[in-house]
Every structure is written in C-alpha cells, then in structure tokens.
C-alpha cells in the first residue's frame, strides 16, 4: 500500500508544479498591477493602488486599439463562420479524386505560421487592390480581418466537420421525401442541428481574432489593434499599467466563463426536467393501457 501512497503523492506534486508553472507568472503579474512601485514588482509591496487602472483606461491608443480589435473580431466572425460552414459542407460532396487535395488546401492555414499568413495577405491584396482599382479595400482593418479569416475559417470548418460527422443523413432525405425544398431542408433541419457548432465557431473565431498578434502585426498597416498597441508599449518599457490590462482581461474572461457555466447548467437542468416529464408521461400511458 505504501507504493500506492507514494505514487499518489508524486501525482499530486506533479499537478501542483504543473499548475504553478501555468498560473505563477500570471499571478505575479496580477499582483504588480496593484503595487504603487512604478516598475512592476511584488517585493517590496510599497502600497495598494488602483492608479495603474486609471492610467490604462485613459490611454487613448489602447481605446482606439480596443475599438479596432472589436471591429475586426466581428468582421472575422462574419467571414469565417460562413466560409467554414461552406468548407465543411463541401467536404463530403467534392469530387472524390480531388478530396484530399481540397482538404490539404483548406487545412493548410492551420499549419502555416501566422506571420507568413500576414505577410502573404498584405502582398496579395496590395497588388490586387491596386490592379483592380479597389484601393479602398487596402485598409489595415480589412486586411487584418481577411488575413485572420484565412486560418480562423479553417478552425470553424473543423468544428462544423466534427458536428456534421454525427449528422444523420436520413433526416435530410426524409425532409426531401416529404416534399421540402433544398432550402427548407437546409434552414429547418441542418441549421438547427448545427446550432451548437455555430455558437462555438463564432465564439472561437472572435476570441482567436481578438488575441491574434502574429498575423495582425503584418496585416494591420498603419492602423492599430489592442495587441499591436500593447506590443509597442511592452517594447518601450515595463509599466504596471500593462499588468492592469492583463488583470482586466483575466477578470472579464473569468466572469464570462462563470456565466457560460451557469447558463449551461441551467440548460442541462431544463433538458433533464423535460426528459423526466416525458418519462413520467410515458409511464402514465403505460399504466393506462
């Protein structure tokens, strides 16, 4: 039994170390956001302050960057979700001999470094917009959205593919046999079935876009996003205002995660209640006969 205890202790120790590595840096950084010391430090803790948050929220560039990041995030969701859906739906319909080639093309952005995607996007659209005369499209916000969409669409496609794998084709055929048009089958059978996938694809697309740096820093041209402003600030020097931003982001996401969990739990409870009622009804019916 002692070997068992030792093994358990080892596993516990490993878990503690792993999560210390994971959270330690973030915790330390968070503490520095509340220290009056002008250089991010935890020792000596000179005094508690919220001054760094005030400086952060009055930082004009950060605010502009945040606005742009939100704009790009929405654009990316609008481009990536439909493209990902179309890519996934086409996967099973594309001509069999071309399928692996098609898969290679649409999945390649996932395995391409972000900087390369950013570079190639700028090079292509600079030339393309100049030749076609659509130079209003040569804009940092639009280019960043297009560049990010190239690989975020692939993420969305993978989400839709895994949901579609469990889709019962017979449902579609039943709809068609009962006289529904293709469009009706699409809107009333496929889209409701894919709803959870739509939700997770949209959330993932927005978050990946919001925190993207590698692609954006090339494609953003003269504009700025929150991450590019942040990168500039960090290179200029360390200030606890940057830690304050991290604390803000952590707070927002933790709140988001908790809300998501609560909503999900309530939905699960509702589903379970519906199931229970259905079972009760069935039992009553059985008893009656």
């Amino acid at each position: 039994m002692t070997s068992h205890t030792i093994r358990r202790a080892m596993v516990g120790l490993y878990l503690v170390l792993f999560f210390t590595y994971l959270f330690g840096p973030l915790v330390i950084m968070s503490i520095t956001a509340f220290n009056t010391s002008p250089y991010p430090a935890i020792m000596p803790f000179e005094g508690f302050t919220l001054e760094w948050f005030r400086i952060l929220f009055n930082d004009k560039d950060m605010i502009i960057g945040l606005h742009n990041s939100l704009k790009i995030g929405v654009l990316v969701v609008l481009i990536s979700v439909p493209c990902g859906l179309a890519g996934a739906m086409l996967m099973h319909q594309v001509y069999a001999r071309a399928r692996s080639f098609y898969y290679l093309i649409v999945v390649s952005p996932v395995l391409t470094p972000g900087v390369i995607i950013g570079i190639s996007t700028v090079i292509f659209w600079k030339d393309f917009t100049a030749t076609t005369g659509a130079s209003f499209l040569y804009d940092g916000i639009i280019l960043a959205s297009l560049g990010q969409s190239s690989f975020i669409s692939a993420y969305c496609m993978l989400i839709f593919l895994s949901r579609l794998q469990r889709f019962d084709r017979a449902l579609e055929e039943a709809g068609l046999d009962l006289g529904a048009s293709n469009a009706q089958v699409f809107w009333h059978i496929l889209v409701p079935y894919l709803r959870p996938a739509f939700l997770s694809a949209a959330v993932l697309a927005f978050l990946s876009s919001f925190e993207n740096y590698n692609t954006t820093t090339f494609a953003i041209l003269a504009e700025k996003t929150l991450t590019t402003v942040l990168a500039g600030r960090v290179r200029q020097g360390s200030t606890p205002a940057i830690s304050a931003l991290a604390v803000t982001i952590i707070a927002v996401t933790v709140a988001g995660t908790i809300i998501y969990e609560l909503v999900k739990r309530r939905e699960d409870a509702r589903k379970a209640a519906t199931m229970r009622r259905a079972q009760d009804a069935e039992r009553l019916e059985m008893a009656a006969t």
Partner: protein
Amino acid sequence: MLASVGHPFVIALPFVVAAMFWYIARRERALGLIQGPTFFQRNGTAIGVFLLVAVMFWAVFLIVLPQLFMVELSFRPKLPPSATGGPRDVYTLQNYHYFLFGSPTSSAEWNVVHIKAFFLTIFASIMVTLGNFALCYPIAFYMAQVAGAARVRFLLLLLITPYWVNEILRAFAFRVIFSTSGILNKILLGSGVIADPIDFLGLDIGMYAGLGYAYLLLMVFPLYNAVENLPKSQIEAARDLGAPWWHIHLFVVMPFAKPGIASGCTLVFMLTSGALAAPMVLGGPRSLWFTPIVYDRFYQAFHWPQGSAYAFILLLTCVAFVMAVMRIGKLSLGEITR
C-alpha cells in the same frame, strides 16, 4: 525572364486546376462512373451557389493566391514602383542568395547571422516541442485515464483559463519575473545567493521559458483527446501480464495516442518556430530568432521581396517538419489536424 508574366499566370492557376477537376468529374459522370444527384440537384441552386462562392473566396482569395503571390514576389528584385514591369524586373535568386551569403558588398563568406538564427530557431523549436511533450503527457494521461469526470472538467477549465490572456501579456509576465530588476533577481539577491543581478533576458533564458510556456495548451488537448479513447481494459491487461509502468506507456498508450502526439507536436513546433511575441518581448538585443528578422526585412529594411524569401524558407521548413512527422508516424494529414 520578365516578371510581368507572373501575375496573370499565378491568378489563372487555381482556376485552371479547379476547372480541370470539374471537367474530369463531368467526364466520369457522362461515362456513368459517378452516380447519384448532381451538385445543384442535391443542394438546390441558392445554397449550391453559396457553397461555391464562399469556398472559392476562402480557398482562392484568402489561402492560395496570397501564398502564390508571396512566393512569386520572393523571386523578384527590389525596385522602385516606376521600374516595376520594366526591363530590370526579371526573376532572380538574389533574395535567397542574400540569405546564404549576405550582401554582395560584404566581405564575409556566409551570412552567418541569419543562417545561425535560422538553425537556432529550428533547433530550439524542436527542443521546446519535446519539452512540452514531456511536460504535458503526464497531465493528459492523468486526465484521460485516472481522474474522475468532475475533476477532469475542473482541470480543463483551469488549463484553458491562462490562454484567454493573449500571447504578449503572457510574455510580459515572464519579463516581470526575469528582467534584471525583476522578481527572480530580487529573490536571489535578497537571499544572498548571488551578489550581482543576472541578465536572464540577455542570456535568452527568459525567451526560452516564455516560448515553452506559450503553447502548452496546444500540446495538452490533442494528447488528452487521443489517450481518452484508449480502453482502460488494455492498460489493465498489460498490467496483469506484468508489464512495468514505463512499458505500459511506451508500448501501449503511446502507440495508441500516436495521432494525438503527432498533432500536438506539429502545432507546437509550427507555433514556436513562427512565434513573434515571445522573442520580441523577451529577447535581448543580441537574441537570435528567425521571425523578428523576417519582420525587420519588411518593416525596417522595407525589402519586401527579401522578406518574402525569408518567409518562404520558414514555410518550407514547417512543411518539411509536418511531412517528417507524417512519415515517421505513418499518419495521414487528416489524423494530424483533427
């Protein structure tokens, strides 16, 4: 060869390939090799058009053409806009020549700085990948095979949380710890272990620690997914037959989890070798990493063709890595990107 022929050819290429496949498919249908409803019969006109337009926009305009344009540009000289398309605009290998031998005016035989940075990046990325695997395999195995459902849910939540904080802030956290007046130095100085602060950032220790930290999650998840599918009975069978624990991992769990291992390693390698945030935030002035050099080619030297050539070299390296992993593991692309 004059470079003005390049763009029309490059733009036509994806459409020609698509048309070719379309033509072959039509021929086979005419010959009766393909049965069933046609594409538009199956989807209806409106949705069929949506599918084709969306996929064409994505695959051609967002993926293929930008990459082809970048490759094409890498073989062109740097010219002022007025000379573009002129007699001097011919295809050349000078950008690749520069990567290997430096500028024609320099006396050095090889472009040592860039070549060294390139190989160091590849080597360090492989090391980071292996390190991440060693670090993440136990936790993935623990979650997939040992822990109960409630605990797994909690651990997954814990694992994801740090990754909502973006890459630059994560790198910044390491800077707070490792800089000369940072926390680690304060502790070491305060406890009297060292007399003078150590320049962890200048020694690149901060950079490697940050790089190792940055993409941990992308190793855990594929591993966890792969190991989770392994039936517990297989491990028990091996144990009953007297296999020591490391035998079980090496000969039962790991072969089974091969696609997950390959997937995690490819992702981590790709992201690490292409990382820009950690080297920029944590690298000292003399740190060698390839992506900041590529960035400087573009936005410091404003030599876009050269930057393209460097980016293409990095891309080829990643392709080679993915192919090597597929070859070693005898895996298909679909298994890696799941």
